[in-house]
């Protein structure tokens, strides 16, 4: 977690910005001052001064608008941020409207991403890289950078205090005699009341408080309750606007064909083969392939399917999942080993162990398969570009669109919509660049580019293939004394960086924290603890997939811990307990899990249960999976009990929903998920061959939230890692078969 701790050391001068909103009224925002300009030519960082983060506006007609330059992709962020504001501003949640401000060059600042979104850790480390790699000097009083827990409340509290001061000034009374409640300020001694709407303009002239008074958590009335989500009503009527729903006057549509070969390049295409087809307007070469523009999407789709196009195989025609696996197994023993953690003396500890164990685990590439296929709408006019899309990383999309359109980054305006799933896929800028390239070719006309599901599956930034070898030793009483883990995989940092960042920011991948989390930072007491990596280079794009390395490392480590428990002839719960004496938060989750899951109660024959514990993104999660195996060997996941300690709760129902969501995502991967290669091509193409959990295969999930006073941790990804090992440990419990390779559909003794 070196990068996170570095992030915490970045200090800056934070300030509250108050002032008159456009059209009157009060606007209060949160901003960070930069004292020095960024590198020339790197527009997003070009200007010194304040980079405005989220802000709240109170208009003279009484609307309260919270603008957050980030997108809702299902994780409930709109509602959670609005709840923090509403709590301190003393308004009802349903009085707040949340909107996406357009992101132009000025706001396309990496710091925007670091704020108030614990779920977005993968971006945060990246931003930390950006910040540390650029000559930015950020000084001043250190304050929290990790989340909006404090920042959003400070915004709300400041606005409230300014409104109270404005009322006191108007009445000629002291602010101490005034109270703010339910969107109005009351002067109790005289009984006078003024609504926020009537105070907004006057409040805008008041200096924001240097140190706004925040409520103590004990006084929270809204935060900590399961308030209904603000985005739900629009999502049951079809009214919610996703990127793919954007409609502009005179808009054309585009479909794309990209190389079927990983790393393949466009050799030639015959535009004349489709230009005469109905509605076709243009054929445009783009990054990764070629696009057809037509009057309707269906016309574009038919034309791209009919287009005579040739790609080369990039020299990767012999690459297959088997050849990759062989290569990785070879590298396990003979590759360049990078040591990332070395506590104690593993070799000596292993030699003096009573029992030893070795195991090799392997997981495949995984696609994100967001329900909404990749899409982006773009309009290029002269030296400006506008893009519309649902995106997790506006900054990179801004750069991508600028490159594709051939304009400066500060000439790009980005309109952010709802996302039909993100899961890490929408941190890539590829779609924005392609859309801008196409829009540039038909300048002056807006174009909506939509990838087919097949393009989406075959051109993802996949969760990497990983090979993980363990060696461990047990002492006399069965205690774990030596632990060594060697991981063979591609560096996500390096791969993502090459695709999405300017050269100067691309790391060397050497101690890539994105691939080590959940392996090199285990909560267990391991006196002799060695972790190593061997980095591989493949022409297959890898990127951030919900919970990133935790998604595979939890499977590896928690399965192997289970193996060691059995080797030591201890119950897996008791075995873990003994290793957590120095980790009270984890121990508490584990104990509650054992209680809620009736861990000590045996199951009937043909059934099994397995346990896993994992911490990530500032939260600790424990899960028990219960399965049954029919006589025909059909596996069914019956029940999952989940215990989460994610610190103080903003919205418990959202936490429960996110645990359910993360578990299903991880379960789909464990049961079915794999992207494979044959002859240099991705084999899978659509949901029929990239299966996921459906209603019929959905287990009962029971989530229990630990009452906690810790700073809020992430919940969007934390449900995912533990389910795979909980499930495979349950299979071992039921039938004594150890699963070391995913997905389960490939285990011949099971049909899922």
């Amino acid at each position, binding site marked *: 977690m070196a990068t996170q701790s570095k992030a915490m050391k970045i200090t800056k001068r934070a300030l509250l910005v108050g002032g008159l909103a456009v059209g009157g009224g009060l606007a209060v925002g949160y901003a960070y001052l930069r004292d020095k300009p960024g590198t020339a030519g790197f527009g997003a960082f070009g200007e010194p001064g304040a980079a405005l983060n989220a802000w709240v506006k109170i208009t003279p007609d009484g609307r309260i608008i919270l603008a957050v330059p980030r997108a809702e992709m299902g994780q409930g962020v709109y509602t959670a941020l609005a709840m923090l504001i509403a709590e301190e501003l003393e308004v009802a949640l349903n009085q707040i409207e949340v909107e996406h401000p357009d992101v132009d060059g000025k706001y396309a600042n990496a710091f925007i991403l670091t704020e108030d979104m614990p779920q977005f850790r993968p971006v945060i480390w990246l931003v930390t890289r950006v910040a540390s790699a650029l000559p930015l000097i950020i000084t001043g009083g250190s304050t929290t950078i990790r989340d909006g827990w404090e920042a959003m409340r400070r915004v709300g509290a400041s606005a409230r205090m300014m409104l109270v001061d404005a009322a006191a000034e108007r009445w000629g009374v002291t602010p101490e005699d005034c109270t703010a409640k339910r969107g109005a300020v009351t002067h109790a001694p005289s009984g006078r009341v003024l609504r926020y709407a009537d105070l907004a303009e006057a409040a805008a002239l008041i200096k924001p408080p240097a140190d706004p008074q925040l409520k103590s958590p004990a006084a929270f009335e809204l935060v900590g309750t399961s308030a209904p*989500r603000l985005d739900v*009503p629009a999502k*049951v009527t*079809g009214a919610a606007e996703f990127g793919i729903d954007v409609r502009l006057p005179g808009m054309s549509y585009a479909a794309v064909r990209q190389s079927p070969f990983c790393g393949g390049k466009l050799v030639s295409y015959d535009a004349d083969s489709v230009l005469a087809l109905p509605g076709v307007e243009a054929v445009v070469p783009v990054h990764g392939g070629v696009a057809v523009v037509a009057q309707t*999407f269906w016309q574009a789709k038919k034309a791209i399917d009919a287009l005579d196009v040739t790609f080369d195989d990039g020299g990767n025609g012999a690459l297959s999942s088997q050849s990759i696996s062989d290569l990785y197994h070879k590298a396990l023993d003979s590759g360049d080993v990078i040591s990332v953690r070395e506590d104690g003396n593993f070799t000596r500890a292993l030699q003096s162990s009573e029992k030893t164990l070795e195991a090799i685990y392997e997981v495949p590439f995984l696609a994100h398969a967001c329900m909404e296929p990749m899409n982006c709408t773009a309009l290029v006019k002269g030296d400006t570009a506008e893009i519309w899309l649902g995106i997790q990383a506006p900054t990179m999309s801004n750069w991508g669109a600028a490159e594709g359109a051939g304009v400066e980054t500060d000439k790009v305006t980005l309109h952010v919509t709802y996302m039909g799933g993100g899961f890490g896929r929408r941190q890539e800028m590829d779609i924005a660049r392609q859309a801008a390239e196409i829009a540039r070719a038909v300048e002056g006309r807006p174009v909506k580019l939509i990838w*087919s599901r097949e393009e989406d599956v075959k051109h993802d930034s996949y969760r990497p293939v990983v090979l993980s070898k363990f060696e461990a030793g047990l002492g006399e009483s069965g205690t774990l004394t030596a632990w060594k883990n060697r991981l063979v995989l591609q560096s996500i940092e390096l791969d993502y960086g090459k695709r999405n960042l300017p050269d100067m920011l691309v790391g060397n991948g050497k101690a890539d924290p994105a691939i080590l989390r959940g392996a090199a930072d285990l909560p267990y007491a391991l006196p002799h603890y060695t972790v190593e990596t061997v980095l591989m280079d493949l022409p297959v794009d890898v990127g951030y997939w919900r919970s990133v390395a935790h998604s595979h490392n939890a499977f590896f480590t928690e399965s192997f811990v289970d193996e060691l428990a059995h080797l030591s002839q201890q119950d897996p719960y008791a075995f873990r307990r003994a290793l957590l004496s120095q980790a009270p938060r984890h121990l508490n989750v584990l104990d509650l899990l054992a209680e809620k899951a009736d861990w000590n109660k045996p199951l009937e024959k043909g059934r099994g249960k397995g346990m896993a514990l994992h911490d990530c993104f500032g939260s600790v999660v424990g899960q028990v999976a219960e399965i049954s195996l029919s006589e025909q060997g059909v596996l069914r996941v019956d029940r999952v009990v989940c215990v989460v300690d994610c610190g103080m709760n903003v919205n418990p129902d959202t936490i429960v*929903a996110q645990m359910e969501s993360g578990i299903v995502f991880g379960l789909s991967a464990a049961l079915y998920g794999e992207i494979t290669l044959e002859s240099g091509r991705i084999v899978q193409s659509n949901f029929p061959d990239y299966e996921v959990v459906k209603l019929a295969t959905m287990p009962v999930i029971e989530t229990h939230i630990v009452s906690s006073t810790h700073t809020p941790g992430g919940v969007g990804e934390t449900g995912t890692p533990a389910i795979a090992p909980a499930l495979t440990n349950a299979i071992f419990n039921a039938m004594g078969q150890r699963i070391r390779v995913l997905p389960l559909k490939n285990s011949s003794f099971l049909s899922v």
Partner: protein
Amino acid sequence: MVYTLKVNGDTKTLNIDGDTPLLWVLRDHLGLTGTKFGCGVAACGACTVHVDGVAMRSCVLPIESVSGSDIRTIEGLARADVLHKVQQAWIDNQVPQCGYCQSGMIMAVVAFLEENPQPTDEEIDSAITNICRCGTYSRIRKAIHQVANTE
């Protein structure tokens, strides 16, 4: 070719290629973007609409095959300001997360409950095969039971 459809009660006449799937007719020609594109091969159900009262996956339905039909989409489900009871149950149970699959999910469930007002879990499992990547299935099941009053 000219085709006529009744969409949410309104008659629409369209001059388009006969192989254009109903999904794109609704979205691109009629501006009804509540119906979603997910897979294009009738595998995910995000594009589910009612064709003459039957839930169908519109991404593989050429307009020429449904000409003259009565189409109902998510936009035509609520009556004036009153939500359909399935939509209301979706709100009561806080079903949607990203929300992208939910139009199709709701349309599939509405048609299913019209046919089978009090389904068992097994019947729900075999009838509702739409995909939700956010994993909202538990809440979908709960919402269906709420409407059916079977729990």
